[in-house]
């Protein structure tokens, strides 16, 4: 019996170490390899060189990714949070609620490349938008919608129902109660859910391949034009064997963005908990 406990403990500790080790190694490796590529020029110039990407920087990709992610968040957060509010505070039928949950699960399970194909057929071809930031952003938005919805739903269900009941008992409508009591209560979780969704969207390349990302473009100014994106740029640099130094540099920038946004989310949640 004692041996068994000890073994379980060992196994748990070992798994922990392994996980941390992998993450640490990943970050260390990327940082070591990529940090060297980071110069002022790398962050503020467009890709240049005989073979595009060997010289110059990645500014259009950074700005492009910001646009894609911003639109994805706007789209995914609006729909995701509204769906969750509907599910928790409006939907009276258990069946409909289950149906929504099922749809969300299926959506979450759709491979991102298939999402890309969906965006391509609907937005790029059928609606005739062509490859553009808006199409790419919305496709990513659909991808992170279930991601945000699940977290929002959990947060909404955790709101103290006594407060909600007290509000109803004064004759307040559901809409007013949700706006004044429920949403402020779970704002930190909602924000951190959206930020995590943003990280997920920013790192995803597949939805953008058919819908918006291009090998080279200027710093984007028009939502209806295609733009560069960090993960796609990284993918091109590596698969074309253009410049592994710049590829690591790009990866480094992405990791930093993910780290910073994640810390922001954690900090925000923590600050609001106090």
């Amino acid at each position, binding site marked *: 019996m004692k041996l068994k406990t000890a073994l379980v403990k060992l196994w748990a500790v070992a798994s922990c170490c392994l996980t941390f080790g992998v993450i640490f190694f990943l970050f260390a490796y990327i940082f070591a390899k990529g940090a060297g590529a980071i110069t002022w020029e790398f962050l503020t110039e467009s890709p240049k060189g005989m073979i595009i990407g060997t010289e110059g920087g990645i500014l259009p990709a950074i700005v492009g990714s910001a646009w894609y992610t911003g639109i994805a968040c706007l789209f995914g957060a609006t729909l995701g949070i509204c769906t969750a509010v509907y599910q928790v505070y409006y939907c009276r039928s258990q069946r409909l609620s289950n149906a929504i949950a099922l749809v969300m699960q299926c959506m979450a399970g759709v491979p991102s490349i298939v999402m890309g194909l969906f965006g391509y057929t609907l937005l790029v071809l059928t609606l005739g938008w062509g490859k553009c930031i808006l199409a790419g952003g919305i496709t990513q938005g659909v991808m992170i919608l279930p991601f945000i919805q699940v977290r929002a739903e959990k947060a909404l269900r955790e709101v103290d129902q*006594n407060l909600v*009941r007290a*509000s109803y008992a*004064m*004759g307040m409508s559901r809409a007013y109660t949700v706006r004044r*009591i429920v949403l402020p209560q779970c704002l930190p979780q909602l924000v951190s859910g959206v930020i995590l969704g943003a990280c997920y969207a920013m790192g995803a390349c597949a939805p953008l391949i058919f819908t918006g990302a291009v090998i080279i473009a200027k710093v984007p100014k028009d939502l209806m034009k295609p733009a560069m994106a960090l993960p796609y740029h990284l993918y091109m640099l590596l698969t074309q064997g253009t410049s592994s130094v710049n590829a690591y540099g790009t990866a480094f920038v992405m990791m930093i963005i993910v780290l910073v946004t994640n810390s922001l989310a954690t900090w925000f949640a923590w600050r609001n908990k106090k």
Partner: protein
Amino acid sequence: MSDAIIKLHDFGVAYDQKTVLSGVNTSIRSGRITAIIGPSGCGKSTMLKAMNRMLETQKDAAVFGSVLLNGVDIHTMEAEQLRRKVGMVFQTPTPFPMSVYKNMTYAPQYYGVTGKQELSRIVRENLEVTGLWEEVKDDLNKSALKLSGGQQQRLCIARALTAQPEVLLLDEPCSALDVKSTQVIEELLLKLKETYTIVIVTHNLFQARRIADDCIFMLNGELWEQNTTEELFANPQKKETRDYLQGVYA
């Protein structure tokens, strides 16, 4: 009785097909305090919640018979309209996690009051009625969660009054409070009955005796006996009522 504000006719409630309240016929008289007493689980809270249709927010509850407010069947009214007229205060205080001031302007703002002066007036008047004004007037922006339990409960009563109800339902409002706070709330209720009709569920027979004009004794999901408090305590008509009042069920 001509001055009945709420009437229940053959009223009953079932949770998940299980009947917990049946055959209730009663009137609540306006401008008085009515206490509902009875052993735990006899359906006091259920009956109270039926009076402003808060029961509907629980999915599995089914209601039979009718409840009339001023002669109008409450199930023909909008739930929001009804609850504005019939306010409710719960067992544990439920201050909203915001400032005292915002707790007090929460309902008026919903009803479209926007003027700053008008809002301040409503806040002040209702806090004064509940005796909370003197205690919090220096810092209305203080979080309501930082008030003491008794203050929180008085805030909840004041907040319920901002919706300008006719009837106030209270479900064991003092059970989480100490003796002193309980006394303050009892005095408050006695003062409020001049303006509002009050229905209070209580486990505390002394409390019922101290403040209630009328008393309803419930047992096993039925209205067992109802009378003026004085009569009910002095002259219970049924054996079970007498037993309960003498503490057999407690």
